[in-house]
């Protein structure tokens, strides 16, 4: 399957009926990761992503190629998160006004900001990828997911003392490599 944005865009403009399944395969994991932060919990994130793809099926015919399909799906899912925060029932039909807005300066800035922030994260990603799987898990569970020492130690099946030691060492290494 080709996840190249230009290929996917052309398939959308050609009204390819199989496209939505491939979009799901290409972007589901990225969307879930993003929405987990945006929505604040896994369940809402899963709902938002599902909603985005349902809305995608419904509105793909109206896609004009103004935004990348990935950003288009992000917007649909982000919109679903916002509605859930307001306590509104999630419904793909509620996306209609958003889709009518088309491209705008705000959307262009959003795309540029995403690229800029991703570039800033590259050094961190490189350092994280060089960690051992256990050290990376320790760091992500404690500093990323916010688990307590006890919870993270149970999750990983190691002692609390071992977890603290790994965390301290990994944080020191990150500070040294990232210069902060």
């Amino acid at each position, binding site marked *: 399957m080709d996840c190249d944005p230009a290929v996917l865009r052309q398939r959308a403009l050609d009204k390819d009926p199989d496209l939505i399944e491939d979009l799901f395969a290409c972007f589901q994991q990225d969307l879930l990761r993003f929405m987990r932060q945006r929505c604040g919990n896994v369940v809402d994130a899963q709902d938002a992503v599902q909603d985005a793809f349902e809305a995608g099926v419904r509105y793909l015919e109206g896609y004009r190629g103004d935004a990348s399909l990935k950003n288009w799906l992000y917007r649909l899912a982000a*919109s679903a998160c916002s509605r859930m925060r307001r306590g509104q029932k999630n419904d793909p039909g509620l996306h209609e006004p958003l889709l009518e807005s088309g491209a*705008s300066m705000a959307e262009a*800035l959003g795309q540029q*900001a995403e690229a800029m922030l991703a570039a800033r994260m590259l050094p961190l990603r490189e350092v994280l990828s060089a960690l051992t799987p256990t050290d990376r898990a320790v760091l992500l569970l404690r500093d990323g997911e916010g688990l307590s020492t006890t919870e993270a130690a149970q999750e990983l099946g190691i002692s609390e003392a071992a977890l603290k030691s790994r965390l301290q060492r990994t944080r020191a290494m990150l500070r040294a490599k990232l210069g902060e």
Partner: protein
Amino acid sequence: MSKLLKDLTEATFDQTVDRKDDVPVIIDYWAPWCAPCRFMTPVLEKLAKELGDEVIICKVNVDEERRIAEMAQIRAIPTMHIVQHGKLVDVLVGLQDEQALRQRLAQLRKAAA
């Protein structure tokens, strides 16, 4: 809201931000319930007063202008976008130091001169 800082809406966003001249535009995405956002307001007002026409400082209330916030992919507040010549030149997430902000604006003005 201070008159020094322009509140942006969907109707005014593009015409305010998409400038062809050298003047940098700061867009501060905020919400009334966000304490760090409230700390930024006097800093931005001070800069707007000091720098006058050399900078345009705007605010977007993300609760009232949800579509702008969604399109601009705002994931945390406060977030500031600095735009010059219609292009994003910096993204600042979280509470910002006044001196650092002042230096960044000076760099942009110097680069444009």
